């Protein structure tokens, strides 16, 4: 179904009632607002995250991909102190990854444990190709690149994971640890400290303080 823009916006002189307006809105959403994604829409640590955000492009088969899309317009509300709700972000890859990706991540874990870093990164890169936006995969890649002493790449990959994680503190925590270690190893003490501050902040948040 393709909705033409002009057809969707009636003459401005009309005075629609609230109900009609909202009905009209739901039928005339802009194409970009037609989200079919399972990604969280509201990002931010104080806003409770949706129940099952997926990796966007490869939701776990059978897992719930339903979420309530953000209404196009939400009336302004008085800003209350942020609720201290522990974010409901996925804590592990199991919640958002397909079986194939989980299997490759498992292979990578055993290879890494055996010190076979090439095998580990190879398995994770295969996983990345299957689910290019799976931030757990990117995060694990960052750790392996750190093991391989590819510090610059480890930091960048962890940043990439942060970017895709859209506020998932559990993943961000791991990523900032990798970033801190990578910066430290490259002699960037200040950068490492800044990353460590992030680690501490998130840990504090998670501890409920």
């Amino acid at each position: 179904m393709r909705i033409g823009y002009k057809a969707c916006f009636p003459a401005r002189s009309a005075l629609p009632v609230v109900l009609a307006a909202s009905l009209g809105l739901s039928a005339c959403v802009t194409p970009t607002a037609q989200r079919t994604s399972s990604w969280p829409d509201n990002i931010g640590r104080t806003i409770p995250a949706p129940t099952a955000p997926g990796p966007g492009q490869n939701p776990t088969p059978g897992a719930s991909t339903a979420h309530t899309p953000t209404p196009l317009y939400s009336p302004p509300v008085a800003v209350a102190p942020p609720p201290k709700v522990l974010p409901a972000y996925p804590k592990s890859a199991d919640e958002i990854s397909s079986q194939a990706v989980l299997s490759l991540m498992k292979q990578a874990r055993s290879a890494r444990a055996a010190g076979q870093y090439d095998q580990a990164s190879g398995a994770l890169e295969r996983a990345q190709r299957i689910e290019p936006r799976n931030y757990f995969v990117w995060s694990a890649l960052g750790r392996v690149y750190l093991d391989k002493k590819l510090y610059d790449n480890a930091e960048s990959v962890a940043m990439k994971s942060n970017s895709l994680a859209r506020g998932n503190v559990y993943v961000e925590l791991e990523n900032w640890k990798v970033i801190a270690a990578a910066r430290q190893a490259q002699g960037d003490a200040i950068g490492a400290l800044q990353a460590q501050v992030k680690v501490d902040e998130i840990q504090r948040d998670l501890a409920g303080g």
Partner: protein
Amino acid sequence: MMARHMAPPARKSRLVIPRSFVYGAAAVVLVLGSIGLIVFSFYLVSLDKDIRTRFAGVRWALPAQVFAAPLELYAGLNLDAGDLKHELERLGYRDSGSLEGPGTFSLNRQGADIYVRAFHFWDGPRAENRISLKFDGAGVASVSDADSGESRDIVRMDPMLIGSIYPQQQGEDRVLVKLEEVPELLRDGLLAVEDRDFYDHFGISIRGVLRAMFVNLRAGHAVQGASTVTQQLVRNFFLTLDRTWTRKFNEMFMSILLERHYSKDDILEAYINEIYLGQDGNRAIHGFGLASWFYFNKPLGELRDHEVALLVGVVKGASYYNPRRNPVRAKDRRDLVLRVFKERGLIDEAEMRAAIERPLSVAGTKQGGVERYPAFVDLVKRQLRGQYKDSDLTDEGLRIFTTLDPRSQEALERNIAQGLAEIEKSRKLPAGTLESAGVVTSVGGGDVLGIVGGRDVRYSGFNRALDSRRSIGSLAKPFVYLTALEQGDRYNLHSMIDDEPIELRLPTKQIWSPMNYDRKLHGPQPLYMALAQSYNLPTVRLGLEVGEKAVANTLKQAGYTGNPALVPSMFLGAVDVAPVEVAQMYGTIAAGGFQSPLSAIREVTTKEGEPLNRYPIRVKQTLPEGPVYLVTWAMTQVMRLGTGRSAYGIVPDTMTLAGKSGTTDDLRDSWFSGFTGDRVAVVWVGRDDYKPMGLTGSSGALYIWSRLIRDLKAKPLDLIPPPDVEEQLADTVTGLKADEGCDSRLLIPYLRGYAPQSWAPCARAAESQPMQWLREIFE
């Protein structure tokens, strides 16, 4: 006898020779004989040394083998029964109704059984195994072990061999096989036809010569050759093909020497790998291992009787019996060989009849071998250059595992070939005048998935995808807008920009007065709309406000490697870029500002499978995420309501796309570049002679691009704002904050903190604000 009777009586007329002379002559003869013997010994010793050096050392220069990325099979993969069949056949798998051995499969709409070949991947060997797949409406529903029924999470198919890197001049290519890998029928059948006494003779066979003469006389034409396999090997290995006595002499002695030093099996194995079996352009096909791929697109072990017979038949004359060019002649030869097989008891009567009934079943086209991707292999070579010596690549048998995705490559090739023909027809252009190039890459990992360097996709000459640097026209515009959007305090997606005439005095004193493509003025435009409609005047205005230097910097951060002249025409794409570099630049936007240097290679191993080099995914954030998100959003508007909107006549409406068209002066270049959630694709259409061809980006390249995207089965773009972006409803008239009171409103992303705070006049909240204020006074 006659001579003796005819000879005159000699005794009477004989001269008396002094005894001393006789002794002297005998001494001379003895000395000369000894010298001759010494020379001959030296000759033999030198031949012997030659032979041993060649045999003991590296016997063949082994061109590097280039493999495509393997197909991964797993539950959830978007691949139906038809697609899978196509994939398997491309890999040379045979639909045999039941699993007969590696390289066979059986398939119906509900599921498939595959006998997966053994393969030595870069990370280790994988044994042959049998798997079962089930399909559902969405693709592969499950993968399991065909024997135990146990579920398999992921199965890697053996990758396709897509080419090899051989020297330009004398391009010998081969795939080495060990004697124990050679099917019995090939080994015995080859000896039955070429050298029946192989295991009995000492290098040359008198019996063989006599038999060949007899057989050939009886048949009325040459059926058997007189040379032994050893002689043929020596000839192929050490000697030229000129028919001189010296060569014959050398051949004979070398054959005998070879037999002295090496076992029969060693010699036969060398023969099987050395013999010349075909020509593919300037690449010479040597050995049965490669010939099996070259003619049948599968490994030697999977050949059937009639295929073995054809290869054995071709030994006699690869050009004369070329099954692609001379199929009738080749079939006659094959059938003759099959009769020899039967006569020697290698196959029975029924098998012979069945084999003779079969067509040649040669894979690939008339000219060449199985599918090859010259433009891609060219990119692989360039990437390897500098890291490996040329001789490493042409001689050491390296195994190169690449990123090529045969599905993407095929979609790109097909759409370029068909698209150009259709465009020429509909535009009434002379057929064959348009040229094209295209690149498909992954989003995020920097993998080059497919590349086409010209209209004739099998031609390995000028690679336009890599080498044709042409003006990119409006493909440069997203980088101008991105540069502006980085300044959140000055610009947002709804900032109004004038669409008014501009006249600029250039340093050359010339006046530059750009115009819109339609030569009209459209009044002030919201920033995103100016991009969507590809208006030139607002773009130049915006570019001048942010500055050439800043825009050039954005281009470079995206991956442009040139040094653009800092002139205003840069904003309209007066920069020359090759398609592959455009893919790099758009890829950086597609990946949220993270640049991954494009790579065509994943791993390189030795011929034994020892890993030499890995190319890990590399990323670096080079552009800020928030502004990149905003420009991506604007590029989705290009597709929804701007110059890219015709794509939605081809791809489904649910497929969110971002892209941009590009057209250069006088319609010399037609570009389209854009991306989905997981694929970046760039298409260029133009003429090699730079003449105008009358196509815009939207009427030329987009035609091919949108069909390509449809066929790639790409994942839609997922627009999820990063943390530093917030979305807000905007009144499309004023660009101010809107609510349900406004009839024309749009949800627009802004850099966090920079969304307009004032309500638009139409907003209900705007009306209620003064009321609230009044109420507060009265209360």
